[in-house]
């Protein structure tokens, strides 16, 4: 029983080390996707620096220039970008 604790700690360490970079990469992909979506709508942004997940297919994006947008898929299947105040 005593010997299991170090093993558990080691497993947690390994999981954190492997998951960390892959999560970061996924986050970067999402930011890039959101940047492209906002740019395609012709809205000012520059680059998305932070993305928060509101719900499924619903994101709150913060741009490098300070603008904030809500990006979501409407019931009709359209990508909608709304400027947030």
């Amino acid at each position, binding site marked *: 029983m005593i010997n299991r604790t170090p093993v558990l700690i080691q497993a947690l360490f390994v999981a954190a080390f492997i998951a960390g970079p892959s999560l970061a990469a996924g986050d*970067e992909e999402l930011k890039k996707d959101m940047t492209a979506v906002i740019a*395609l709508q012709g809205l000012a942004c520059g680059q998305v620096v932070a993305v928060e997940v509101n719900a499924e297919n619903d994101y709150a994006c913060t741009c490098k220039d300070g603008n904030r947008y809500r990006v979501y898929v409407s019931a009709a*299947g359209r990508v909608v970008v709304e400027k947030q105040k």
Partner: protein
Amino acid sequence: MAAATSMRLTLIPFLFLLFAGCAAVTPDVPVAPKPEVVAPKPISPPPNAMAPAPSTPLPVPAATTSHTGPSTAVTEKKSAARGTETPVAATRPPAASASSVTVAKPATPPATAPPQPAAPPALDLNALKEQLKETKAIGVFTKLTLKNQVDDLLQQFRDFYQGKAKVTMAQLRRSYDLLLMKVLSLLQDADQKLASAIVASREAIWGLLADPKKFATLEG
């Protein structure tokens, strides 16, 4: 004591992994690839008059006599000052100026014909659609946004052919070009093959859209 030592020993590889993992994280600001320099080689010699002359004088290209910019003008002035400028007629090959020389026909035609420009590949709209769906160069939301915009453009064409819209064909062409530019700008870095395929099909797709009969078959 022994257990603590063995635990420390087993933790060392994981600490190594920790540092390695941190080092592998990509930076926030992506480093742009160094663009290849494709600028044409300057045709005028360097303007530095104090530079040592080459041991064998290089032939001055005829283009240096044309006024291409300030550096060329400086070069011309310097060469004129040195008295090295040669008249244009002197630089021409003698065969070109000799009118009395009879032009002899080649005994045999050239063995290899000049290469013909490659014919544009046949348009495979379904394959392009599939490739656009499958490409990993564009995110899901971006693909959906592009699809929305393609649908909007198709609706504009539909309205145009039904006489509902007041847009002109030139405006539709501009919208088409803009949309294609958006797609290409998203693809050109990450999926050059698909970008090239779309560029090659550009006029063929426009041919489908701009012809009402072909557009009708596209709709059906």
